[in-house]
């Protein structure tokens, strides 16, 4: 079922690896921005009357940095403009350095029932290096406030000087604090971010080392009962992120806010990345979309494969046939035969073999046109 994403582009301090649209110095704009977000919901909601949404996700930036009353307000407005399913999954991203008892109380009141906490690492020196505003202790505190709630922790791989022991400590901490879900991402040094300099100077672990950490991390997570259901996502049974699963099933979604993207009626839309433009557009009653792309059928087929192969569920021939009316192993006949050795096939389902999940781009390019 479709989901709704809301982008909150504010944060206290930009992390050294951050490539997202966020404005650390413009928190004062948050009230105006949230007003625009409400307005955008109104604009978009009109055309989507037939949709029932199953998930809501507040991402950022740091959504937990703005006054929680705006999150509460956003949920009220959202319920006004969109129809939600009976038991929607409503997630908010949080920075452990920005939580308080009152905040969480208000979130709960707003209907939020899932939290995604940016831990990244349990090693404070590494947190400081990343420009994070919190310590491992802050994470422990945040978790104590969320006792009994469904929350996830983000963990990073490939940090400067990161050892297997560091990773052990991090996963152990997240697990002990009660995370039901753990996302384990390899740090991606993007051009233009401060950490890119470290990368250029060869100070970050190389691909082989990251892979070693990843394999080790997977083992630790498995031991602790977190099952991998996507390349970077691990969950206790039944705690998979429904919102994200929808992306990988190539489901539709609505993105609200600056830089957010939507996938509706076979088209991909992207909102402007400029905060002022975004507000101007929305206030004048226009969609703040700067890019829209019709996804051609061939392209759609590739997207389907590309996304499904990220997951533990793999490509389902039946689901593919339902979507496109053809057999994917025939549509991608040549590539499939060539790459067959890297897949496991179980009846209807085809997955990338475990040991090749982390080199899937190389496999996927074979499935591209041309």
């Amino acid at each position, binding site marked *: 079922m479709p989901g709704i994403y809301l982008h909150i582009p504010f944060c206290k301090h930009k992390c050294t690896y951050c490539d997202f649209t966020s404005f650390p110095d413009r928190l004062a704009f948050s009230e105006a921005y949230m007003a625009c977000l409400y307005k955008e919901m109104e604009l978009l909601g009109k055309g989507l009357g037939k949709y029932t949404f199953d998930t809501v996700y507040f991402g950022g930036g740091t959504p937990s940095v703005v006054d929680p009353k705006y999150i509460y307000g956003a949920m009220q407005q959202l319920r006004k403009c969109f129809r939600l399913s009976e038991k929607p999954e409503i997630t908010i991203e949080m920075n452990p350095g920005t939580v308080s008892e009152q905040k969480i109380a208000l979130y709960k009141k707003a209907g939020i029932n899932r939290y995604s906490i940016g831990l990244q690492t349990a090693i404070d020196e590494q947190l400081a290096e990343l420009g994070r505003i919190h310590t491992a202790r802050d994470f422990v505190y945040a978790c104590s406030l969320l006792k009994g709630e469904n929350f996830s922790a983000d963990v990073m791989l490939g940090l400067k000087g990161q050892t297997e022991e560091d990773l052990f400590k991090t996963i152990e901490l997240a697990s002990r604090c009660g995370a039901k879900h753990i996302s384990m991402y390899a740090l991606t040094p993007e051009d233009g971010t401060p950490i890119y300099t470290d990368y250029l100077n060869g100070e970050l672990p190389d691909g082989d080392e990251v892979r070693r950490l990843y394999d080790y991390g997977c083992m630790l997570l498995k031991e602790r009962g977190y099952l991998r259901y996507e*390349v970077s996502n691990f969950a206790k049974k039944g705690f998979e992120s429904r919102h*994200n699963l929808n992306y*990988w099933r190539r489901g539709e979604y609505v993105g609200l806010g600056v830089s*957010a993207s939507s996938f509706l009626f076979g088209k991909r839309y992207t909102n402007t990345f400029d905060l002022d433009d975004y507000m101007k557009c929305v206030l004048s009653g226009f969609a703040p979309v700067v890019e829209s792309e019709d996804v051609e059928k061939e392209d759609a087929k590739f997207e389907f494969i590309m996304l499904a192969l990220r997951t533990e569920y793999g490509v389902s021939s039946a689901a593919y046939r339902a979507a496109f009316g053809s057999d994917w192993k025939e549509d991608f006949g040549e590539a499939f035969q060539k790459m067959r050795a890297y897949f496991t096939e179980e009846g209807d389902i085809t997955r990338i073999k475990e040991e090749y999940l982390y080199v899937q*781009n190389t496999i996927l390019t074979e499935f591209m046109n041309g």
Partner: protein
Amino acid sequence: MAKANRNLRNFCIIAHIDHGKSTIADRIMELTGQVSKRDMEEQLLDSMDIERERGITIKLAPVRMYYTALDGQEYEFNLIDTPGHVDFTYEVSRSLAACEGALLVVDATQGVEAQTLANVYLALENDLEIVPVINKIDLQSARVDEAKQEIEEVIGLDCEGCPCVSAKEGINIRDILEAVVKQIPPPEGDTEAPLKALIFDSYYDNYKGVILFVRLKDGGVKVGDKIKACLSEKTYEVTEVGAFAPFLQPKESLLAGEVGYIAASIKSIEDVAVGDTVISAEKPDTPPLPGYKKVQPVVFCGIYPLDGSKFLDLKEAILKLKLNDASLIFEPDNSVALGFGFRCGFLGLLHMEIIQERIEREFNLEIITTAPSVSYLVHKTDGTSFYVDNPSHLPPVSEIDYMEEPIVEAEIYSPPDYLGSIMELCQDKRGVFKDMTYLDARRVKLEYRLPLNEIVYDFFDELKSRTRGYASFDYELVGYERSKLVRMDILLNGEICDALSLIVHEERAYPRGRTLCENLRDAIPRQLFEIPVQAAIGGKIIARETVKAVRKDVLAKCYGGDITRKKKLLEKQKEGKKRMRRIGTVDVPSEVFMQILKTNKD
């Protein structure tokens, strides 16, 4: 006997690269009103894109000009531009044969260079009158007197009163023209004798057919005349004659002593070889002029389209280039690894590079080139012998009695500071020391015998880097010598890649194989499986490296906003793959085929 025009001067310009030859030519044309400044593109004579970019001249370009001298008389000048690079020495010798004199341009800041010397000797052999010209006198670092002294000492030319100019600033250009009038003799020749014209260049024009660049030694030629090319014995009817202004300018006739062009609906450039003599078809017994030595290609390489389906486009491109460049030799070739392509022969490495660049640029084709090779003389045990320039065509070891390889005599000019490292380099390249001469306190000439196959790899680059660019180098093919040569094959994932095979000296095989495997290991991107890279001689593995399997190639996050981004990323990755050739099971980037050029680790 009717004498040739006494007011005619045919000359060329000899200069080292960068010493300002083309600029001087431009200034002379400007001063004689040949080209209005407005129309003039910078360095008019260098008309090919590549020529202008690299600041070198490849093709000859003649120009006719009129000049009224201080003596009040009007003179006709034919300036024949010459290439400056060692690969094109043959072109220089061709233009020299069409002249009575040469301007020797020397950069006042740099003095005489090795290349200049080689061409000066060539000019002296051709009995040309040489007029020294000192250029770039406007520069702060100009050492006019030293340059003059150097010319006098090294070459033995009198520099008393020679023109000292700045072509860039247009200073004293008239001095050059006066020196041409006074010092260079008019051509000899009998305008009434039977026609004898030397073909010194040619190119193919889509409308007029082959255009012959000729220097008339005797007689005359006009439209409607029947002419004959001595070598091919083909006859043609002249459709147009004219002068170079510098664009083709038709005129009624050409007479003995003159330089000009002939068009005669000639379809094939092969039938009118450069160096051949054009005579009158009515006087078929006229003895030809002594031509030039036929140019032999010395460097060979395979050229393949990156996209295998573009073979016909490549063929068309090479055929078109061949029309204007008789020295380019080619034949169809077929490689297991690279498919259909051509084996091409070149005059040298620069010539090779320029042809490759022209194919890519002028015809918009992406190509793969294999490492350059030379032509080996193979003697088989059954007593037969033949030349092989493609390592993969070498017969099995058991059938080879012995092999010979081409040897050059090289002259290296350098400041004495670098002698040690040059000698070390030559030693490394199997060179045999011949002689060493101090030309003056700052310049030494080293003479070495070297196998050509050592030079075609990275000799020149190495020489330049070891001498910080100070050394210059020239060579001449002197023959073949028996040598212990073996074919080294490269195996990728257990399969021989024929396009990477090469012929090496037995003693060099081990280090060469090792370096090559190391270079290939670094150049071949990691793939889903481990790839052994091996060097082998006759089935025996002599070196091995491994390209490790790729361990991480994944986008960590892929949520709503990342999907489009991820697709773009994968497309980029796919593009990269397109630039590769699949050899057996291995994707190999096209640059790799040139990797074996490098004998050193990067």
